């Protein structure tokens, strides 16, 4: 990876610099070698990756459908980014800690977070449905970039625990998008990680868009080069190539765990869907772009590879599809069963220790709601008060 002192690429070239990309599997399903990223995968492992890709796409599909049907308030689809997420997610070890945005559903899958737990936030029944410690998968972070500092701090904690440079060394991985690279917090996290040589992998999914804004609004050079400015390595990988994402992330994580400090990975990919289900991309981007990216689909190329190399037959593909369908149906069912929070749940967990003001408001509100229950007069407020049974 060499970096010239150029004044930045002219518009357009930013989206097109395949020359700089680490790729191990072409869109046509051809395996290519890269001297820095040797990767040995068994047929089983490749089939597992394929399975992952298909299932997470199905979960995502189901969630989009649930949103259309009014069962979720909104959904941030990962369509097109499956390889970036599965590749990096499968590079993780149990001891590593993940700091996601709001779109890392496939990474959650790799960490063993049950898909239904991701839906709570989008259905509006909670702000996060899982225990980050249980899965080493932090809460989704919506405020763009904030989690990158958490990742850097957590990594400093790993250092302080002496858990770097040992066999069981740990690292953190911070996910963020192309738009996020403009935020102060993200750049501050680069400063921290580099100055403290902290075990963080910064995994930027450059899906070319920040809602309606194309990459050119955030940078005039490829994003992976940002790391250069902070003195740590940056690397661009084909984000639609699950092999390359796996290999590159594995190496970066190993290097972090080994005490070599941070790496920035730019996974060059594409947001195939809308920003979220409330977005309308036809207002700002051309259909042709989407068509071009369809040819680079992250799943198709693995399928092609498996077929070409006779690692899978149609029974396998049918099985995976069936399993994916089942997972999707389960998610749907569980979603519809998600209990609504009761009104009194508003006061839960605001503080870890007793807090006079919370207790007071809680009591007042309970009394207020009880007033309706007593009166049972069927007004709007009283109707809702019935839900209180669900309060935790």
């Amino acid at each position: 990876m060499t970096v010239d002192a150029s004044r930045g690429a002219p518009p357009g070239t930013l989206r097109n610099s395949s020359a700089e990309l680490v790729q191990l599997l072409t869109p046509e399903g051809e395996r290519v070698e890269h001297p820095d990223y040797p990767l040995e995968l068994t047929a089983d492992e490749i089939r597992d990756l394929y399975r992952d890709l298909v299932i997470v796409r199905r979960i995502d599909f189901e969630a989009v459908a649930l949103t259309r049907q009014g069962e979720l308030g909104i959904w941030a689809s990962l369509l097109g980014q499956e390889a970036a997420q599965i590749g990096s997610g499968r590079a993780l070890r149990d001891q590593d800690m993940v700091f996601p945005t709001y779109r890392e559903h496939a990474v959650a899958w790799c960490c063993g977070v049950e898909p239904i737990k991701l839906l709570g936030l989008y259905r509006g029944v909670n702000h996060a449905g899982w225990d980050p410690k249980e899965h080493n998968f932090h809460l989704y972070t919506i405020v763009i970039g904030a989690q990158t500092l958490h990742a850097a701090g957590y990594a400093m904690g790993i250092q302080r625990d002496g858990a770097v440079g040992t066999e069981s060394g740990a690292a953190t991985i911070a996910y963020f998008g192309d738009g996020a690279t403009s935020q102060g917090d993200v750049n501050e996290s680069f400063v921290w990680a580099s100055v403290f040589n902290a075990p963080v992998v910064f995994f930027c999914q450059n899906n070319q868009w920040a809602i309606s804004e194309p990459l050119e609004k955030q940078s005039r050079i490829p994003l992976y080069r940002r790391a250069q400015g902070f003195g740590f390595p940056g690397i661009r990988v084909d984000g639609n190539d699950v092999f390359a994402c796996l290999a590159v992330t594995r190496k970066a994580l190993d290097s972090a765990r080994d005490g070599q400090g941070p790496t920035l990975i730019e996974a060059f990919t594409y947001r195939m869907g809308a920003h979220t289900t409330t977005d309308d991309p036809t207002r700002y981007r051309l259909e042709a772009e989407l068509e071009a990216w369809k040819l680079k689909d992250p799943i198709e190329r693995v399928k092609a590879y498996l077929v070409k190399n006779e690692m899978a037959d149609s029974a396998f593909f049918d099985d995976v599809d069936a399993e994916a369908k089942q997972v999707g149906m389960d998610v749907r069912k569980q979603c519809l069963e998600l209990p609504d929070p009761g009104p009194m749940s508003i006061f839960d967990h605001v503080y870890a220790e007793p807090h006079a003001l919370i207790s007071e408001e809680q009591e007042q509100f309970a009394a207020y709601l009880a007033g309706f229950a007593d009166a049972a007069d069927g007004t709007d407020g009283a109707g809702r008060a019935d839900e209180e049974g669900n309060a935790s």
Partner: protein
Amino acid sequence: MTTETLTLAKALGAGLRKAMEDDPKVLIMGEDVGKLGGVFRVTDGLQKDFGESRVIDTPLAESGIVGTAVGLALRGYRPVCEIQFDGFVFPAVDQIISQLAKMHMRSLGAIQLPVVVRIPCGGGIGAVEHHSESPEVHFAHAAGLRVVACSNPADAYTMIQQSIRSADPVIFFEPKRRYWDKAPVEMDLAAAPPLHQAVVARPGDDVTVLAYGPMVKTCLEAAAADDERSLEVIDLRSINPLDIETIMASVRKTGRCVVAHEAPVFGGFGAELAARITERCFYHLEAPVLRVGGFSTPYPPSRVEEQYLPNLDRILDAVDRTFGW
């Protein structure tokens, strides 16, 4: 006098367009304000008509948006910044409170910063976290800023233009759950009340109800629903400066006052209203000023937000309590 029936969002767009036509120095800047027209489409069509140099899709960083707007204002422009959602104004707080608010005073009046920061605010639209905040008191407390909140299409149209004309920085709150409310809008600015004047949205005799932004409509509904008492609803419109005269006149008449806002009650702007009104109307008050607001908790998941947000019942409950004192 021409009148058009517009949604609040469209009225804002029309106001912005008018301001841009009137003054070539007016710029729009923010995330997705260009082709997309903003996530609420408030700036829809403006980039197409005024070009990319006047309607600027910025990098994704709120401190950068406000900080560069300060710079543009120093060069003689009148930037109107959009913060995409209330919860995302916090990264810009330093630029707003330490820079934007203070620069006129720090420069002994040499510098004016006519910057408007538009913030869609409040809950009630079923959004995920950080999309339903009501951060107005942070700005009301920061001297050097003017802070206003529109509640209806007609005000949206005029107040945004008045804010852009202001020589001082203005934090402009837009009640996002009212964006789609429609009403007739008088297109002649001259007929509008001054930016910082409160208006009696519904006259009444028994109790004064104060609100701004999204809560005005709720209070009006409460007033309409109360058959027993006559509620006088005042739309503050401006929270800094506050039109205390209009408020006092009402409270001295009614002797009772309820304040409603979506932000948590504790340390919220209602505290200032209650404290100030009590100072001015001590002997007129039959009961303490009561506050109805969000609970002192983070904004809850949307499936329970209707319980969190002050509604008609909770407002009338407070009204009742002022009579029970």
